């Protein structure tokens, strides 16, 4: 692929290419949050302005009437001061009684990643109106939390079902492949190709089910990039060979990155199968920006300054420019997919999702008629250890 790539898919996480992951991160795609505090004294006054104005008018009326009754200036002044103090105290008391509750409510509802916990994060108020709102919130939170828990449970049960079923299916699949291997010959080789495709689809279904319950399911450790690439290529060997795609691996043995090997293999497998499916003769694996060293040139340079980047380049059909920004969308098949007629549109979506969850970056560049390039960025260890998200969710160990 030559120099310039006219189309670039934005990095996962940008508004254009964001994923709606359901569950805990849905709030990330909500409309922009205001950072100013919602509940301040000034706003309180403004909100209660009508009552204050009426009180002021009443006070003025009283003073005028006193003047009409012939009271002295000092008498009027005393009454005015008393009224003013009374008004101020009334306002202050009203503010103080409910300040804690409303300010907590405003703050928490913005901060929480799981809004259905709101009722338990706020102190139960005493005052009438505040209490009414609190009770309503409590009811909603309870119902939501139950729904969320049920949904999570369903998903987990489904995942377990898929795992069990997959293991069952793998047995006859393995047996069939061995029989085909033994028979040998053209026909058996064709059968083996189809069996491998079935196996690949099964893997996809399994990984999809796992991805839905992803929170605790990945373990990040030091892995050899070369081993992962080779494993992914060999897993799809028949498919690649059948499509005449040849891999060229320019990855060193000491290229070690922090990643979950199973998930990384899955992602690489998807990329390589895509390349083959869309006409690639050569699929080149190379590494840019090893650790702190800057990459040669190109848009990846800025990111690769701080990360190792695995680059997968193919010389296939490429992707139409209008489709490129949408490749990571769930269910997106684009012009290519429709032409092939066999795309589920889930492959790249899953890759993007998995990369996001395991703290990797993924970018796609393509030029129709030239080919496609995918870059996967791995954080260097220092970055990873500083990211508390990953620490909480994974087992970090030396391989």
């Amino acid at each position, binding site marked *: 692929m030559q120099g310039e790539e006219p189309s670039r898919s934005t990095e996962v996480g940008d508004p254009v290419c964001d994923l709606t992951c359901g569950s805990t991160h849905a709030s990330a795609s909500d409309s922009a949050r205001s950072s100013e505090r919602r509940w301040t004294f000034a706003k309180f006054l403004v909100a209660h302005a009508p009552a204050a104005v009426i009180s002021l008018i009443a006070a003025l009326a009283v003073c005028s009437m006193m003047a009409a009754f012939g009271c002295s200036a000092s008498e009027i002044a005393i009454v005015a001061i008393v009224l003013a103090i009374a008004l101020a105290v009334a306002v202050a008391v009203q503010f103080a009684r409910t300040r804690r509750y409303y300010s907590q409510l405003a703050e928490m509802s913005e901060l929480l990643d799981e809004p259905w916990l709101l009722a338990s994060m706020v102190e139960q108020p005493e005052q009438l109106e505040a209490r009414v709102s609190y009770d309503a919130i409590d009811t909603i939170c309870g119902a939501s939390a139950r729904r969320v828990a049920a949904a999570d449970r369903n998903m987990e049960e489904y995942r377990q079902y898929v795992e069990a079923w997959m*293991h069952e299916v*793998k047995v006859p*699949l393995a*047996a069939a492949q061995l*029989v085909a*291997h033994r028979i040998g010959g053209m026909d058996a080789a064709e059968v083996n190709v189809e069996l491998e495709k079935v196996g690949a689809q099964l893997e996809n279904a399994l990984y999809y089910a796992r991805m839905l319950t992803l929170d605790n399911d990945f373990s990040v450790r030091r892995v050899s990039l070369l081993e992962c690439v*080779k494993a992914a*290529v*060999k897993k799809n060997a028949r498919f690649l060979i*059948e499509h005449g795609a040849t891999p060229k691996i320019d990855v060193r043995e000491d290229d070690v990155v922090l990643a979950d090997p199973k998930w990384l293999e899955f992602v690489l497998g998807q990329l390589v199968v895509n390349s083959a499916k869309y006409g690639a003769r050569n699929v080149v694996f190379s590494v840019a920006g090893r650790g702190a060293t800057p990459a040669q040139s190109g848009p990846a340079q800025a990111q690769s300054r701080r990360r190792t980047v695995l680059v997968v380049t193919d010389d296939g059909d490429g992707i139409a420019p209008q489709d490129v920004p949408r490749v990571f969308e769930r269910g997106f098949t684009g012009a290519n997919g429709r032409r092939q007629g066999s795309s589920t549109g889930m492959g790249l979506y899953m890759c993007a999702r998995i990369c996001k969850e395991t703290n990797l970056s993924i970018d796609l560049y393509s030029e129709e008629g030239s080919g496609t390039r995918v870059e996967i960025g791995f954080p260097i260890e220092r970055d990873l250890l500083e990211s508390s998200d990953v620490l909480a969710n994974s087992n970090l160990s030396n391989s």
Partner: protein
Amino acid sequence: MDATIYIVEDDNTLCRELARILELQGYEVRSCAAGEFARAAELALEQGADMAIVDLALPDSDGHAICRDIRRSSNMPIMMLTSSTSEFDEVMSINLGADDYVSKPYRPSVLLARVQALLRRANPQLEAGTRLEHGGVVLDIARSQVSYRDETADIGRNEMRILRLLMMHAGRIVTRQDLMCEIWDSDEFIDDNTLTVNVNRLRHTLGSIGVPGGFLITRRGQGYQVLAPRDGE
């Protein structure tokens, strides 16, 4: 002396196919009958096995338990067959004394290579599985040499794998795709042209030690085949 391998696998087809592959390679194979899995460890030792292959997911008993039982009374190499890609199973296997594990679906060449490695490590004297013979041509896999009558020649890794696959399926056609898959398994990701080059080099080597031209033939549009003079009659 041929090594004896004991297979503990409940799926009949899988068990049969595994046995076939191993026997083709020159090993003696015994397997565990259905309903006997609880005594698998005992039977393995009774049958004088040099190595055991145990499937993790068995109905009557736990593959891990069998592994542990065998390990308790013997040092023979144990290979676990796993279906899951879960680390837990893999770590458990190793902890209980298994020497290696392979997950389904199996690539025959990978399986064989690992069996061979385990056996060689455990018992360097065992020779089975390292030589193939057909029509007077002898392939020494361990030394990567091919012999015919009195002549011997070295052959490269790719050529060796090609000849081995062809000889394992002697008399039948092996497709180009199968050959390429076989070589890819050894981390050489060759393309179609390179395969042709490798086969021609192999032919040349065979010719140089006097192997008749009709031994390795091309089946146009299908693949390659090795024949001995008596085949095809």
